[in-house]
């Protein structure tokens, strides 16, 4: 109990409130813990059913599957926090993957050069989305739905029915995905570094704070002089860059790239972000949560395959988890809101 409460005439009521406020704060932070608990429950259940599931190599496989989605989810989180969404990420990954593969195949640039160009393409595509949303004021869901098709169209245009196969790619490039650093696969390490770096910056940098503020309360953000337009543009650039990085690594991870690579990835990414507790209306949620969401969905997918359940169950369970995650959030928020109302907050 706070000592400041003692001098108040209604100190017991105040103490009750403060207790409640503590719980509220805790619940907000518990979101990530909640996902981890669900994850552990899933792991426990599946392990009992199929002991094969519980192995280092299987977990490594799951994380490898997650790593590219996680990188894209980091960018998507940045955009969703500002009350926007980027539906074009799947197309950006696909276009960058093919362009990078093509550059490597034609040996126009070295591996490092091709990777750099790939990332820059992603950045540019993100910047175009940002211009549409922040400057031209096209609603994000419409603007990026448009660029989803435009970018995929460009992909088809440069691919022209061709495909980049593993044989076409230099060994140095293919080796990235299979290499390890201190026993940890490079892809997992890269995803972890990007996620942790983004998490730190979103939480602690001035721009990161301002992104949350924009999503949480646009009017307040405007009033305190936050450059809303510039930051939303920036969020789309970051999202494009993340998709670009994932695109660059795509060929290395899967060995071949065609014009359909990463189709539908945007929905997987958004599912991960939402399950991870990022509020689709902006303003709250974390990169760590989004990555945990991606891991949860990938773990369930893996488990169902091991349990030999059909594709139907996989999709149905993914759907159920999204509804459950969002529903629980709404229920908890509603519950505490009612308590707060009853304790006399206006």
């Amino acid at each position: 109990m706070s000592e400041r409460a003692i001098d108040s005439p209604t100190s017991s009521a105040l103490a009750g409130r403060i207790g409640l406020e503590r719980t509220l704060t805790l619940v907000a932070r518990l979101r990530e813990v909640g996902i981890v608990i669900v994850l552990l429950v899933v792991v426990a259940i599946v392990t009992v059913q199929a002991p094969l599931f519980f192995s280092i190599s299987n977990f490594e496989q799951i994380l490898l599957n997650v790593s590219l989605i996680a990188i894209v989810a980091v960018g998507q989180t940045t955009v969703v926090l500002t009350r926007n969404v980027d539906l074009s990420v799947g197309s950006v990954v696909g276009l960058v993957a093919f362009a990078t593969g093509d550059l490597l195949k034609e040996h126009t640039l070295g591996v490092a050069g091709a990777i750099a160009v790939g990332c820059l393409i992603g950045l540019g595509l993100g910047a175009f989305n940002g211009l549409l949303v922040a400057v031209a004021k096209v609603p994000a869901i419409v603007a990026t739905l448009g660029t989803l098709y435009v970018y995929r169209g460009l992909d088809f245009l440069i691919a022209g029915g061709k495909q980049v196969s593993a044989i076409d790619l230099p060994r140095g490039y293919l080796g990235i995905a299979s290499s390890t650093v201190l026993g940890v696969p490079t892809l997992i390490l890269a995803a972890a570094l990007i996620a942790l770096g983004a998490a730190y910056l979103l939480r602690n940098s001035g721009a990161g704070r301002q992104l949350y503020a924009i999503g949480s309360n646009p009017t307040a953000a405007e009033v305190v002089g936050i450059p809303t337009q510039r930051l939303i543009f920036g969020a789309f650039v970051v999202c494009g860059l993340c998709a670009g990085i994932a695109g660059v690594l795509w060929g290395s991870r899967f060995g071949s790239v065609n014009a359909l690579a990463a189709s539908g990835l945007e929905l997987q990414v958004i599912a991960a972000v939402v399950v991870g507790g990022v509020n689709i209306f902006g303003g709250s949620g974390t990169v760590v949560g989004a990555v945990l969401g991606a891991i949860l969905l990938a773990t369930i997918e893996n488990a169902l395959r091991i349990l030999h359940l059909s594709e139907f169950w996989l999709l149905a369970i993914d759907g159920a988890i999204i509804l459950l995650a969002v529903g629980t959030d709404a229920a908890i928020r509603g519950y505490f809101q009612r308590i707060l109302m009853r304790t006399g907050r206006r």
Partner: protein
Amino acid sequence: MSETSPVLRLTGISKRFGAVQALTDVDVALFANEVHALVGENGAGKSTLVKILAGIHQPDAGRIQLSGEDLVLSGPAAARDLGIAVIHQHPNLFPDLTVAENVFVGRLPRNGVRGVDWGELNRTAQRLFENLGVKQSVSVPVRGLSVADQQLVEIAKSLSLDARVLVMDEPTASLSSHEVERLFTIIRQLRGRGVAILFVDHRMEEVFEIADRVSVLRDGRHVITAPINELNPAEAIRHMVGRRLETLFPKEQATIGEIALEVRGLTRRGVFSNASFQVRRGEILGLAGLVGAGRTEIARVLFGIDRADAGEVLVAGKHAEIKSPKDAMRLGIVYVPEDRHAQGLVLDFSIAANVSLPIVERLSRLLVVDRVQERQIATDYSKQLQVRSTGVEQVASGLSGGNQQKVVLAKWLATKPTVLLLDEPTQGVDIGAKAEVHRIISQLAGQGMAIVLISSELLEVLGMADRIVVLHEGRVAAEFARDDATQERVMAAATGHVEA
């Protein structure tokens, strides 16, 4: 005025919202063929009463009788079905539907299997408007109609429902004088047809032009009801403000310094015009006036949210260009808005993150916010303002209204302003927190800040301000020194009633 039985009688109506007692034991009776004006200060309970009649709120106690029969207004539909039509200040229409569809929304005439009978719909609607003596095409969408025309659509709707009671909540607030005349003609016409009309307003000249009877509310209580010829505007104003204790807000004496902010002929078309005033360091300038008089709008221009069409702003004697809140903050002007939920706080953020939001760039070193310094600043201001919390890491959504208001204030103080624009700083906070906010305001003035205090509460302005500028319909109606200001004089100026 025949002493027949009333069409609608409210007896002993009380209504409470949380800690606020909005209405206490209010009696009002409406008679057919009569315009009954309901007047009172902001917050006197007029709107609550209107919402009870509209079925939006249910009273905690009291009786509502229609033609002598008790009834319960369980919702807007119930009120409508019983013949009580309420026209709100801002008409609630569907902008993309036509005028005729809006009049008959939910009750469109059917034509067998073919659906809506458009011909019948338009003919009936047209007849309603002709009945009102108004030329109005009924097949155009409502979007694009003026507020006055939209009100007529609402009136036509109430006619089509055969409403016996018509409640109008400040219907003239956004009308031109010509439109007011047209509205009054229609009101008189409706009165002649036997409709009982409740006319909620606070402009004395209008009330005394249209009403047959006046009721005054003050602090949620019914003060007096009298036929219009037994009352004059000055008496009505005296009933509105009453006599209340004046010692709630201890104002400390502060040294008044040089001019911090001067406004010359500031104009924003359609909102306020030719506003001129100045405020000195250490001084509290009260901006009084009724809701919609242009006080908030002036503050928004001074803070760079909106732009002025004409006029000049001088900060510390120098001409200032304020194009954005950033410019205003650079010049040392900050604005603490009225609606802290919508404009003030990021509720998901901790107290510390909220406080540092306007200065987060300055607190950053190499991109990263200096957490230690941030905590320090937030703790300092929280302590100064006595924010009751578990600590500066507490999330703002869990704080009480009064404490949230203090966090908003702390946020702005962190920018070290010289001019503080406070808009309704005590709205919605309880009485204890209110006294505390007043103490803080007084203390800040004592530190040499120039403060512009916008408040709808007369007592607050009278108690706190060194000088009072009264606005009426976007113009400066009067200016009073602290010692010359009385409730009656300020209220008279605010209601556009020129003192004899």
